[in-house]
């Protein structure tokens, strides 16, 4: 039996539509974050290469790349589900999905899977482009893939929550500017938290983004600020919490069905 049958076609169609939605505007949704990441790479590596040494045998530029990949992957996974939901709520076309027999779980899975796909495509693109500039090791591929999927799922679920909650674009932008951005920049994208004063090291350990980035970076270099298993546990727990919260919102029809 084919994987796509009458039961699964609904959720598959919604997933396909969500992927095509960003693919149609790939210049904005994929090319633009890749360019941004490369600009970061160019500037920071030029300014800091040779001045900052995080791990003994890892040049700063190489250290920076996994952080940049993860940062873009997370931001784009979030942007995909949240902007799609807010836009279809503002435009009113969300009704086309709400009128269908799709369950709240199928609705969630389609949006989540599309967010993961966008995150992974952006992350992979940056990785491939970065290989032209830097020699990057890849010690534990499994950890790299695991954290890439967990991270994009976590932010995809967070995007669903933000998208359902926000009634307007500026509310969604507030999530991006006041939650996602600070948590990303304070997570160790550009530095190791060991270089921070003790108080900031402690604060960083309450930031889930730190674990996603550190675990991801561990996959490349085989070393990180903490054990990847701890990161895996923390990120999985956060993911589970956000999945439960978004499912609870969708099940109750919060802001979608009156």
């Amino acid at each position, binding site marked *: 039996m084919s994987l796509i049958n009458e039961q699964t076609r609904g959720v598959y169609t919604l997933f396909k539509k969500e992927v095509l939605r960003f693919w149609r505007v790939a210049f904005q949704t994929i090319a633009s974050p890749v360019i941004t990441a490369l600009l970061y790479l160019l500037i920071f590596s030029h300014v800091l290469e040779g001045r900052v040494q995080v791990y003994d045998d890892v040049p700063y530029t190489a250290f920076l790349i996994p952080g940049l990949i993860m940062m873009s992957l997370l931001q784009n996974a979030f942007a995909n589900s949240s902007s799609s939901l807010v836009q279809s709520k503002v435009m009113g076309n969300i009704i086309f999905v709400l009128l269908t*027999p799709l369950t709240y779980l199928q609705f969630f899975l389609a949006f989540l899977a599309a967010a993961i796909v966008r995150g992974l495509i952006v992350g992979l693109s940056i990785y491939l482009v970065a290989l032209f500039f830097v020699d990057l090791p890849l010690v534990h591929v499994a950890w790299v893939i695991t954290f890439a999927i967990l991270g994009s799922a976590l932010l995809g679920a967070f995007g669903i929550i933000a998208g359902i909650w926000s009634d307007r674009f500026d509310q969604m932008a507030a999530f991006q500017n006041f939650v996602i951005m600070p948590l990303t920049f304070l997570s160790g994208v550009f530095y190791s938290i060991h270089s921070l004063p003790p108080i900031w090291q402690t604060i960083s350990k309450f930031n889930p983004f730190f674990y996603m980035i550190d675990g991801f970076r561990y996959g490349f270099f085989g070393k990180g600020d903490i054990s990847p298993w701890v990161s895996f546990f923390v990120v999985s727990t956060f993911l589970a919490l956000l999945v439960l919260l978004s499912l609870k919102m969708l099940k109750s029809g919060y802001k979608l*069905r009156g």
Partner: protein
Amino acid sequence: MTVPAIKIEHIQKHFGSLQALKGIDLTVQQGEFFGLLGPNGAGKSTLINILAGLLRPSTGNAAIMGHDVVTDYQAARQALGVVPQELVFDPFFNVREMLRFQAGYFGRGKENDAWVDEIIESLGLTDKAHTNMRRLSGGMKRRALIAQALAHRPPVIVLDEPTAGVDVELRQLMWAFIKKLNKEGHTIILTTHYLEEAEELCSRVAMMKQGEIVALDTTANLLSKFAAKNLCITLKSGDLPESLRPLLKKVEGATFSLALTELNQVEFALSELRKVNAEIDDMQLIEADLEDVFLSLVGGA
């Protein structure tokens, strides 16, 4: 006995302290062309949104083709196609893509593509099938909305004010199309402001006012029950006698429209006019329309 297309039992809906629906009971049989009339705020759209699963009823049940809209919502939604009131569209895709997606959400695959092409053609959208939704004119968007509601071949179709702001030509085309669907066995529920529309299309009508159904009957019965005829008299000289004032509905210059409930009132009107020596210039007996029924039920207080 076949299951009714729509069965609504004691539906109430509260929005905070506002009671939008105050206990609606309504059954629509399969194959009917049913009209839901009422002024803005009467609760028509609230009722439709409950059927569509966009709102949950505070109390009561509703079923589509025997499937409860809350407990058996998947089967209920499979049986229902809704044309929303607002001109909503997805700006990322063209007409054919949107229709295929819509059918896909309902589990329909390639085997449904022929049907999608058929609706595109019947609604005059063939030239626009590959046009992005964003680039369609208002009228074309309206057609695409109807097409989207039909993409999964639902037996019951609800049209929420489909002809609001639509030009005469498109209105005629839509009427013809909807009539054809009804003839092919689809149950149609139409909400409208245009009484003329309900009169022309609907075999049965419910009139709503402030969350209640105030009249529910066949269109013919409603017409005969509430206002059989209008008598329009233009007087050359004299004035309308006092005895006829209670029947007066409208005055335009020397033309008086009298609402008659029975045909023998014509005789009465003429004899009263003779008594005051009023000279008649012109006289017409006009069939009442739903507007009269509507005004007598909804307009007053």
